[in-house]
């Protein structure tokens, strides 16, 4: 059955990294209280101080406030996308496996249309259609993510439905909801949870990637990829500012990947 091995050092590191970022956000929200959009052009690239623990950027805006906002956007985006994708993928996967026939065929068709393009290209296209829209990016990334959930759930449900215990349950006349809760969900979870963690990492990666090519969220929104591309020209003036969003993306993706690795199947 599913086991979450928290004692493994890598998993611990992943959880620790995520907590560290959350504490940074929490600290900024509770103790810092500077508006990250306020520009003080005379105060550009100020070095870290007690007021500004992470210094300021090219517009003299607070790096701490902007990083915190960017981490929040990334985390919210990944959380929303993963929940949506997992729900949609699981429901569609079970429906396709259970009902087969035209339901399976038409979901399969939609999946094929979506799979015709690499995910990031699809996100780029939708990003181009609705420039700077969080909702559009959320829908786009979820559209890309759910396919993986769908395929795994569909394949597993197909084999589970053929298993003797479910056959028996069905013969006893238990409803679909009971079957789902009692038999399907416990079997599906071990694959869904790591998938969700990788999905969260991928969502963060996608958001940062399209930000880096200026297609994602628009300035002055603080977004990690956008911050990187905005700060790139200043790499020799202020490398320590450029390093901040780079390290944040790295820590976010790494922590989700490590946590995903913490889910082990018990043999």
């Amino acid at each position, binding site marked *: 059955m599913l086991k979450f091995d928290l004692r493994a050092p890598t998993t611990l590191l992943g959880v620790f990294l995520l907590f560290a970022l959350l504490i940074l956000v929490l600290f900024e929200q509770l103790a810092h209280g500077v508006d990250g959009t306020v520009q003080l052009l005379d105060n550009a690239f100020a070095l870290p101080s007690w007021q500004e623990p992470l210094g300021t950027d090219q517009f003299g805006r607070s790096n701490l406030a902007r990083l915190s906002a960017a981490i929040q956007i990334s985390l919210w985006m990944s959380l929303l996308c993963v929940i949506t994708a997992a729900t949609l993928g699981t429901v569609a996967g079970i429906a396709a496996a259970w009902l087969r026939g035209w339901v399976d065929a038409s979901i399969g068709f939609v999946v094929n249309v979506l799979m015709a*393009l*690499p995910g990031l290209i699809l996100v*780029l*296209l939708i990003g181009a259609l609705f*420039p700077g829209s969080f909702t559009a990016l959320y829908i786009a990334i979820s559209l890309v993510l759910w396919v993986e959930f769908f395929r795994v759930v569909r394949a597993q449900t197909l084999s589970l439905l053929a298993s003797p215990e479910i056959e028996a349950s069905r013969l006893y006349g238990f409803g679909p909801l009971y079957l789902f809760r009692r038999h399907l969900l416990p079997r599906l979870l071990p694959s869904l949870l790591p998938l969700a963690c990788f999905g969260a990492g991928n969502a963060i990666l996608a958001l940062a990637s399209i930000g880096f090519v200026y297609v994602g969220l628009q300035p002055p929104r603080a977004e990690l990829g956008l911050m*990187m591309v905005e700060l790139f020209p200043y790499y020799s003036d202020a490398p320590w500012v450029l390093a901040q969003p780079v390290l944040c993306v790295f820590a976010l993706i790494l922590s989700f990947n490590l946590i995903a690795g913490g889910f082990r199947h018990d043999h």
Partner: protein
Amino acid sequence: MIKLLYRRLMQAIFVAWSVGSLTFLLMHLLPGDFAYRIAAGRYGYDHVTQAAADAVRLELGLDRPIWQQYFAWLGDLLQFNFGNSLVSGAPVLQEIDHQLGHSLQLALYAVVISLLIAVPVGIYCGKRANSVADRFGLFTSVMLRAQPVFVIGLLLVLTLAMNIGWLPVAGFGGSQYLILPAIALSLSLAALSNRIIRNNTHQVMHSSYLQFARLKGLSEQQAFDRHAAPNIALPVIAFVGVQAVSLIEGIVMIESLFSWPGIGHALAHAIFGRDVPMIQATALMMGLLFVAINTAVDVIGYLLDPRQRQEVEYAEV
């Protein structure tokens, strides 16, 4: 073989239709007047005016109903006529030719370099599973995989090109411009594939058939070459197909970072400038590139693996 190619051809047509329709929808859903957008692409921002937009509208028949334009476009597509670029007036295929060549070049070099890195590293680590070298390999792979590919590129630019000055930082011209982007892309691909190779090697090394081969008197090297190598190679080639997605996504980011004049760069630039006709053409090309890479992987797998040949025959029945 023919069946396999036929299946991929069908997929290519499907891709062309779905990407084309998606972008067609996108163009007409975009707020604002489409004729203005084309005029901006054609004449530049200083010269996009109502007069220029009207000229474009007249020339391209943009005042027709949307469904008429859609079917006209679909008809052209059926005859493999991609038409003329709305912006430059030159045939799209001719326009894409130069950029597609550059993207294919980058893709080929990136994949080959990634295999040159991943295969030796993977096999070495796989033969010595859980050794210090293996753990170091795992650590490096995990670190690389937690970076977006453009950060790897950024770090390479700042170290190899700027501080040491070995290679040009961006642009194109001679082959020296290809090296950095190809390495950046290949590192991100190899970060995953070396672990797949390592796991395969590890599995194969402990397999009964390899032990039997050694028992029957083959040397370690002979046994590995004859029995282990093919079984390691096949999943790896299949995995290159799986990586086609990362490859294409990487191409967009890396080309854009290094100003490498390929399709990905053109796509990112077109989206940046909201140049819809170019978005359509380049997205279509990326989709077809995707199919092409998968086809190449299929063909190589088909040539190498007798089992796959049978599978294809059965699947088509």
